[in-house]
């Protein structure tokens, strides 16, 4: 006789169900670099609503996060992480406590560590002060 479903299976009570064994390497890498739990994001879009740079992004901040959740590595060619100015508005507003600025930094670093750059010396406008140069080179060059 078939067992009735639920009779002997242990119930999960009050525990988050998280299957980590099959977590794609790309997601694990971004989580490690950012220190953020990417699956906490429930796509409310608050980060994108408040991002003053979203107009210039090909993917909105929440979409970037979704692509990472889906382990879609094409997100590495997105313009969004390079437009992000690390202003942290999203970080203080996310209702799930996800610091998207850290996720953007992780995505930049994955490219920078492959030798990519977000800044070409020849294109630096004249007269920019040291504080801007140090900031930009630290954020946008390998």
């Amino acid at each position, binding site marked *: 006789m078939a067992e009735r479903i639920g009779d002997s299976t242990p119930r999960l009570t009050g525990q988050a169900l998280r299957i980590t064994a099959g977590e794609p390497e790309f997601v694990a890498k971004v989580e490690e670099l950012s220190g953020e739990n990417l699956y906490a994001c429930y796509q409310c879009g608050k980060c994108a609503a408040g991002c003053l740079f979203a107009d210039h992004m090909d993917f909105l901040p929440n979409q970037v996060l979704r692509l990472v959740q889906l382990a879609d590595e094409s997100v590495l060619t997105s313009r969004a992480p390079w437009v992000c100015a690390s202003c942290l508005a999203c970080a203080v507003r996310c209702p799930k406590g996800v610091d998207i600025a850290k996720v953007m930094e992780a995505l930049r670093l994955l490219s920078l560590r492959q030798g990519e750059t977000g800044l070409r010396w020849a294109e630096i406008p004249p007269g920019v002060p040291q504080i801007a140069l140090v900031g930009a080179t*630290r954020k946008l060059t390998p």
Partner: protein
Amino acid sequence: MPDAKNPSPITHHPSRIPYFPGCALKDQAEAFEESARAAMAALGYELAELPRWNCCGTVYSLATDDLMRHLGPVRNLVRVQELGETRLVTLCAMCYNTLARSSRFVGADPERLERINAFMDEEADYRGGVEVLHLLQLLRDEVGFEEIEAKVKKPLAGVRVAPYYGCMLLRPREVGIDAPDSPEVLEALFSALGAEPLDFPQKAECCGAYQTVSDPEIVRERVREIVSAARRAGAELIATSCPLCQFNLETHQSVAHHPSPITVVYFTQLLALALGVPEDKLGFAGLKFDPRPLLSERELV
């Protein structure tokens, strides 16, 4: 006993505080440092420049594995420790953020701290525990705005100023000196000085920061929104605490959008002015848009 021939540059007098200038204040933002030191002197405090300080790195690393990026900040904290002091005051909002976050980052994990210490050969190990303060915290929490108000010699009556906080004084929450979306510390200070602080919706929104190097068009757009919002609120001046915000707001204000630009000052220039610091120590001549015509109309300079 301190060595009489080689005295420590800082004695442990509570009104002498180790101070970290950072690169910008020795370069394009000299007016910020000069006016701050003069204002603090008028309040009975000495900002004692940290010996052998080095660049903090400007931006805080947001990655978990970039320990090297914390070396610059930590070296500065070691210099504070060498003086036997426990506090370090900053003026530049970016330095404040980077130093305060690094201090927390290495302090939170003994293993991290050990690794950083292993990188430094010349310095003594950093033991943790140096508190990084922004000057506004010192003014609000220690000097007190009532005390400042009592020392005002030239009330800035009728001066309509838009306080522009930007990002790094307020975010993230752990190091923010005030509520991240509705700060009031600058407003309270300007009220104490007799000025008229104005609320405007862009006061805590990013100016584009270092994108001024890689994508100035985005910064121009941000600056247009920030300055227009300040103007709509009725501002005659914008006051900031960040040399990069100051640069962006000055440089990217376009006369195409409005014939008369709004002057962007450091908050310490208004503080020093109100405390009666002589005009030649206020650094107004170093700004792109000179506020003196406006201030002389009010008979303040």
